[in-house]
């Protein structure tokens, strides 16, 4: 009996081994690299996160410093993602529909936030929006301080999440047939009705995807935010900066707890984006 089950086990192992050995080299490299680079580090974090009791985890995850950091990170990221949702839609519309001088250069420049390192973005935003900077000096007489406040965090987030809505929307906008709009206009719809009822619905999945991608990026942003903000708790300390500070204070568990919250939020957004895209595909097929 024991011999039989042992043999069975051996066979099972053999078949798993054969499946791996039978896979082609690209597959093997892909899986091994993903395992080493992605799963192993995630496993390490999972083990650390579960090393304390759930009560302890909850206490740190909902401590007042952490709560205010979530407030700074998530609320600011949401507001900036929505602002970029509106402006991104207008930018994509203008770039696809209108002709004007320097259009190509402006179109290419949308990708600046992808091409410029975040540390440089933080440095230049902190300078431009400081009290004696180009834009900051214009705002200072009104008592508006941007650099080293939460507003500065918002500007940094606006910068880094700008391209997402524009870039997800442009290809969809290009594919829309102008006949639909013309038909709506011919049938007596006003321009605003045409926009809201005819043009906007098919664009919505792309806009929402872009907003979600921008939000996700803004939530995780460290480089530009840490330079623009003063990083004072309860004022403009964001969650990723808090993770970094905890680690610097040799509080690895505290860093892990807040890092896990951030990770879970990004995973939820990722699943959400996938669902939206599935919905978009269904929309496209109809």
């Amino acid at each position, binding site marked *: 009996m024991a011999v039989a089950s042992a043999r069975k086990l051996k066979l099972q192992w053999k078949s798993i081994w054969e499946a791996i050995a039978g896979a082609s080299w690209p597959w093997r490299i892909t899986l091994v690299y993903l395992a080493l680079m*992605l799963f192993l580090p995630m496993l390490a*974090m999972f083990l650390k996160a579960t090393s304390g009791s759930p009560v302890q985890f909850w206490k740190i995850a909902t401590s007042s410093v952490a709560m205010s950091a979530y407030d700074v990170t998530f609320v600011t990221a949401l507001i900036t993602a929505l602002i970029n949702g509106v402006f991104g839609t207008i930018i994509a519309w*203008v770039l696809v529909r209108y002709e004007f001088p320097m259009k190509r250069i402006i179109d290419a420049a949308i990708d600046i936030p992808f091409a*410029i390192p975040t*540390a440089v973005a933080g440095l230049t935003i902190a300078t431009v929006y400081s009290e004696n900077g180009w834009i900051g000096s214009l705002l200072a007489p009104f008592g508006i301080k941007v650099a080293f406040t939460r507003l500065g965090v918002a500007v940094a987030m606006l910068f880094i999440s700008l391209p997402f809505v524009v870039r997800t929307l442009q290809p969809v906008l290009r594919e829309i047939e102008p006949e639909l709009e013309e038909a709506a206009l011919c049938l007596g719809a006003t321009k605003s009705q045409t926009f809201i009822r005819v043009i906007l619905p098919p664009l919505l999945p792309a806009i929402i995807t872009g907003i979600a991608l921008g939000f996700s990026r803004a939530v995780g942003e460290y480089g530009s935010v840490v330079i623009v903000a003063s990083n004072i708790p309860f004022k403009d300390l964001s969650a990723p900066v808090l993770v970094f500070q905890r680690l610097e204070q040799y509080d690895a568990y505290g860093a892990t707890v807040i890092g896990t919250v951030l990770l879970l939020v990004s995973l939820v957004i990722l699943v959400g984006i996938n669902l939206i895209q599935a919905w978009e595909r269904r929309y496209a097929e109809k």
Partner: protein
Amino acid sequence: MQRSKKTGVQEILIGLVIAYLALILFIPAINVFYQAFKYGLAPFFGNFAKPEFLHAIQLTLIIALIVVPVNAVFGLCAAWAIARHKIPGRAFIISIIDLPFSISPVVAGLMLVLLYGRIGILGPLMEFTNMKIIFALPGMIIATAFVTLPFVARSVIPVLEETGPEQEEAAKTLGAKDWQIFWRVTLPNIRWGLLYGLILTNARSMGEFGAVAVVSGNIIGKTQTLPLYVEEAYKQYQTQAAFSAAVLLGCLGVITLILKEILERKTTIKDEA
């Protein structure tokens, strides 16, 4: 089109876009170059006399030189594996490859500290073998490879899917070996997509801040890359030095954008992305 011209909607929207982009994008971008060169070229070139600055440039280049080829090999393998096989859960695998884009760089760095650091689960092994990964170059390379992992695969998959397997199958029927098919058929077909991915990988490798900041310990003259140098100089109120370093990275960004634009004109990748 004609109608919107009459109502002036077009002009208002274009003006709005340019004003918004100026505030958020253009003025900050121009400011990098202005601040770096406002006292002429002397402060910029003076920076090159500092050993820690030169070391930061060197380290940034070394990391990119290692990370770009490694992630290129992985990206090509993953793209081929995904694009050439009808496997269940394909979207799921692509999502997994995309994970590093949605994980905060700081969290990515934290994961590596928890894995390879002194307190990490491989900590005893590191100590036993006398290997140093965290607060040293290997950790910075791994962190950079982590955050740039998806770029090549993401740029190559759509191109591979578009070309289809027919040419490769024809080559195989004619008796070509696997590596011959890769060099002579597949690679020429995907070259622009691959190059696009390599450019993005390179830009992010040289510019990565968060993940590298966590694992490097930012030891001046040892584990300080160019982006870390920018932050350090700024914190030390050496704004001029910070901008001299930033303008180098800014130039990298401009070159990246120009190359990207050229490649996008050559391919239709922009519509695929």
